[in-house]
């Protein structure tokens, strides 16, 4: 029997069947809670007639979502704390020449002194700040790219979160361009900004004048161009690998494998057969070759510069074509 007197709560109900100490002949009883009266919740909708921003406002929202995530986890793309820590280490690592410049200034090392030769502004150091192999292109830049770009598209592919964008007035071109730009920006901040800081610090610490700037600016701009090519190429290859994968780990490892593996194979072939042509398959070596020409350094490679340029263009074109093709098919067959 169920009775409802409207006063007792469920906690007072006797449940003889389960816990009763009687012999079972008693009349079973239970008490149900009195139903609540009134509305469960109130729903009031207020229309909104405000203007919606143009395309660039929407695109900026995508861009900032990805870039701001590095410094603020709230409301933006989530970057793992390890990635953030590594970014900090890479930024600090790429700023060590500035510290050494300061040191050479403090110990009054002259222009031909050891510290100045090692850390001061010259063609080799400007090139090395962007394209030096160890530690920058062996450890820092590839790892930075792999960690930043690895999950950029693959996470969306795995989770289906790209539909969030395509259900809104965001075209696939906007989506792809902003993803690419946000990754390139992070790389540019680390690689190019620290490069520019290094050059500016040299001018400021040494108290150099306009004539010094006029002398070194072309070399600096050459190095800057080489850095821009590096950021462009690494971002394109990384994002292409991310777009064909559903795992950020696979995308990152593939990127590292390609950058470091192609260099290793080319090096083994060079020492075995004494030819540098195979370096054409290595993105780093193509960039280094072009970079040497841009800053006016003697080339380390036997093959013509044009082949490295063609290879670089082909790598970027192929990467962007893969990326565009994968983004075009995103969410088309899902659901």
């Amino acid at each position: 029997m169920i009775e409802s007197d409207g006063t007792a709560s469920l906690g007072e109900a006797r449940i003889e069947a389960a816990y009763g100490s009687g012999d079972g002949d008693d009349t079973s009883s239970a008490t149900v809670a009195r139903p609540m009266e009134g509305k469960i919740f109130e729903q009031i909708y207020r229309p909104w007639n405000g203007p919606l921003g143009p395309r660039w406002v929407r695109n900026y929202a995508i861009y900032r979502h990805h870039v701001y995530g590095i410094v603020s986890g709230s409301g933006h793309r989530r970057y793992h704390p390890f990635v953030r820590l590594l970014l900090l280490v890479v930024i600090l690592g790429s700023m060590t020449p500035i510290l050494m410049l300061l040191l050479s200034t403090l110990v009054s090392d002259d222009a031909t002194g050891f510290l100045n030769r090692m850390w001061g502004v010259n063609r080799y150091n400007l090139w090395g700040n962007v394209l030096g192999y160890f530690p920058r292109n062996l450890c820092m830049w590839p790892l930075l790219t792999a960690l930043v770009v690895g999950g950029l598209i693959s996470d969306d592919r795995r989770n289906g979160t790209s539909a969030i964008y395509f259900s809104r007035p965001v075209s696939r071109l906007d989506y792809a361009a902003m993803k690419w730009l946000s990754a390139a920006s992070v790389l540019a901040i680390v690689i190019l900004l620290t490069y520019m800081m290094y050059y500016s610090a040299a001018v400021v610490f040494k108290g150099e004048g306009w004539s010094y700037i006029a002398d070194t600016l072309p070399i600096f701009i050459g190095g800057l161009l080489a850095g821009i090519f590096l950021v462009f190429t690494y971002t394109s290859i990384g994002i292409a690998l991310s777009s064909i994968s559903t795992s950020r780990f696979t995308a990152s490892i593939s990127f590292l494998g390609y950058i470091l593996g192609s260099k290793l194979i080319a090096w083994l072939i060079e020492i075995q057969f004494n030819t540098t042509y195979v370096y054409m398959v290595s993105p780093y070596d193509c960039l280094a070759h072009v970079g040497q020409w841009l800053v006016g350094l003697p080339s380390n490679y036997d093959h013509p510069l044009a082949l490295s340029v063609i290879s670089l263009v082909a790598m970027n074109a192929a990467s962007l074509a893969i990326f565009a093709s994968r983004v075009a098919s995103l969410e088309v067959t899902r659901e």
Partner: protein
Amino acid sequence: MTNPPAVTLDHVSKWYGQVIGINDVSIAIDGGVTGILGMNGAGKSTLFKLLMGRIRPSKGSVRLFGTNPWDSTAPYRRIGYVSESERMYDWMTSIDFVSTLARLHGMTRAEAEFRAEHALSFVDLGDVLNKEIGKYSKGMRQRVKIAAALVHDPDLLILDEPLHGCDPLARTSIMNVIREMGSRGKTVLLSSHILEEIERITEQIVILHAGRLVALGNLHAIRAMLDKHPHRILIHCEDARALASSFIDKQPVYGVRFLDNERLEIMTKDLSEAHSILPALILESGVPIHSIENPDDNLESLLGYLVGDSR
């Protein structure tokens, strides 16, 4: 010049190789709530994918506010879409998530936060908007999606199975939201394979079956039409034979069947008339009744009548 309808499909067909997703469907929908009914594989998802520009029609044309969604994302400024399968950023709080999506529509940060808070309160999540989405229940997640779809005050709301997996409280909340939007003159399209769900929200329905449009219009009108077809009423009582004798000579009843001693099935060709005489006859017979059911009152039966044996 008059405004084009929110949704226009003109002889639209979509096939995937040998499989037909949508077959020659033509509809125009503008204003109010419209339920898209169909069993699994009927073409509801294909229809929504066509509307959302995810796939291109093999034949015919799709227009949202007069614009082809495959060619332009412009109509999406006026559309809110809730996908059944769409994932969210689980690490974000609902306020962050909804305001992030509001910014994808071009709102400023202040506008986005203000509207996100309002939209979340409207779907009854105002007290948990600073909680991470990953910690939400299925019904709460569904309401976050609806809030994200409403945040920019769209003119057209497309909801793919919005009540799927929700508890009764969440269902009531979502149904209230849908009815409210419809009453404000917005166009709301929602899909479901459960007739009762749609019936509680709207009278305007579109029924799809095997990619074809089999019925379109007012649910009551379709029901009235179907009422003239054979129907069954299942009565669970204490003495089926005693109750049957009260029905057998009455006009709308053309047959009775005993499933067992306590279950009686009545066959009628006029369901409304049968239900109108039912209470008086039961009282007259004095047989205690446990339940009365209409086994044919579901989408499957409705489709059975609409498409006949071709199913």
